[in-house]
């Protein structure tokens, strides 16, 4: 880590970004999550909303209420208070176990992805389902999680050609991350498993199932078990079990 990071930069007229790195890494994502949680606790007048991305905390604010100079000074003060790369994860996180069918008709690129990772299909399923991954950030579509980091073997490049469409609930893999699709969309990542989990539920009291910092594991189930879950589930959880992380 060089002294260049962390760095405070403006985002347009009404945003400020505190970046901990220019690449995704476990410590920089942890720092971003923890620092954003800290800003939320401060509840400064003039802050409209905050978020965390792969390696940054973002503050959207009204510069007529909270000036750029004052906000920057306050952020510098918080940054100096502790080593954010070592910060404890924010509280209120949850651990989700989400049933998933790996491979087969529902997830046709498992074999291809396994081959690219240099393992058998069985070993690939064991590796992917054994990984307890964290929601690094939500984006691209409402409620859609980026999850990581997966073991080094999964540092796969994106496909050169897009898959024209994967369905909602698709679990895709590339660059040591999963994306769990919140909507039907094209992708350059490989479709290795299918869930019945809905990440975005606009008509629910809790429209976004997952939060940045939550942890997730995908539990292999048979096609029959999956179809049974899909038939009876109306909650959008797709058979997932969640518990609080103490």
């Amino acid at each position, binding site marked *: 880590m060089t002294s260049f990071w962390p760095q405070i930069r403006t985002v347009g*007229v009404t945003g400020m970004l505190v970046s901990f790195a220019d*690449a995704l890494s476990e410590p920089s994502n942890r720092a971003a999550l923890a620092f954003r949680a800290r800003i939320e606790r401060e509840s400064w007048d003039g802050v409209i*909303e905050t978020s*965390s991305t792969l390696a940054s905390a*973002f503050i959207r604010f009204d510069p007529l209420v909270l000036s750029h100079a004052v906000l920057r000074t306050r952020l510098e003060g918080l940054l100096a208070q502790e080593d954010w790369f070592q910060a404890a994860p924010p509280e209120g996180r949850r651990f989700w176990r989400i049933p998933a069918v790996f491979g087969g008709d529902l997830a046709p690129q498992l074999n291809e992805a396994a081959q690219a990772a240099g393992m058998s299909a069985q070993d690939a399923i064991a590796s992917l389902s054994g990984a307890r991954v964290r929601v690094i950030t939500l984006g*691209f579509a409402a*409620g859609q999680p980026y999850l990581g980091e997966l073991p080094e073997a999964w540092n796969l490049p994106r496909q050169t050609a897009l898959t024209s469409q994967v369905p909602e609930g698709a679990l895709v893999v590339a660059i040591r991350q999963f994306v769990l699709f919140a909507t039907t969309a094209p992708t350059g990542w490989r479709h290795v498993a299918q869930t019945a989990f809905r990440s975005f539920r606009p*008509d629910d009291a809790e*429209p976004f199932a997952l*939060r940045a910092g939550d942890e997730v594991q995908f539990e292999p189930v048979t096609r029959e078990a999956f179809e049974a879950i899909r038939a009876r589930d109306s909650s959008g959880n797709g058979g997932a079990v969640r518990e609080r992380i103490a």
Partner: protein
Amino acid sequence: MTSLAVHSIGPSVTIQDRGRVGFVASGLSQGGAVDMRALAEGAALLGQSADLAVLEMAGFGGTFVADDDIRIALTGAVMQASLDGAPLHWNASHAVPRGAELRIGSAASGGYGYLHVGGGIDAPLVMGARSAHLNSQIGARLLDGAVLPIGADPGTAVNQRLEGAVRDVGGAIRLVRSFQTNLFAPDELHRFEQTVFHRDMRGNRMGVRLIPDGAGFQAEGGLTVLSEVIMTGDIQMTGDGAPFVLLSEAQTTGGYPRIGTVLPCDLPKLIQARPDVALRFTFIDIDAAVAAERADRAAMAALGTQISPMLRDPGDVSDLLSYQLISGVARGDEEL
């Protein structure tokens, strides 16, 4: 409850308000009207809250009939509009009697027009707002045959006109440097400020493309920047080097390099520019930008001073007569 029936509708008309604030952390952008200034203008014309929902009409409106007397205001991109065949002024408020046919045609500029109704469109609240967010499958484009509930309208003023609201002539657009501006070489930034742009007609609620007179613009790091937060008004450079200005329904994060961010108060002028008028960009510093926002907010709060009664000229008499014959009564509070 009063309702507005949609007899026919243009290809991209949606219910909009100020959108949903507070969900960027969950990947949902604010959304809401692409031209937020139009919301304030319609609210000033009708003497009501700018939080009420309106119809946003991209390029083309539709045909509407209300089942009770209503008031409307028309703002944003100027569109052909008529009431039972009599032309209606844009940037103005009007009485629309029960059963009269309100027809809103195309915008010569191709921009976004807005139809406001007294009391607002009482569409269901989803996550605290009534606006459609097409990219997130919240709400949808209106279809022929839709019936829109209208809220109670305590107001009475009509035939008011707002001066100085036309903003389709292009000109200088101010922007500030943002966290990726230094990915572009100084020469490239200088050329960006010297270049004339035209608005591409193929825009949508996520963003609008600009066509440079000359070569496109490239960041030094190429296209391999870390995906990072997006602000409305960001100008990203996609593969072909043409700037793409991100609007209310943009994704919350993106990986294309961004050269700067348009001031919120200059965005309406950019998105409503006619395709044939020149747009130029000027970087200003953050203090000047905040001062400009402050001045703009004061101007929005004082919109009422730009509103005056519409005076009908003698050429409008036939219009006036037809209106009275159809409605049967004059409301009495009109400035005729």
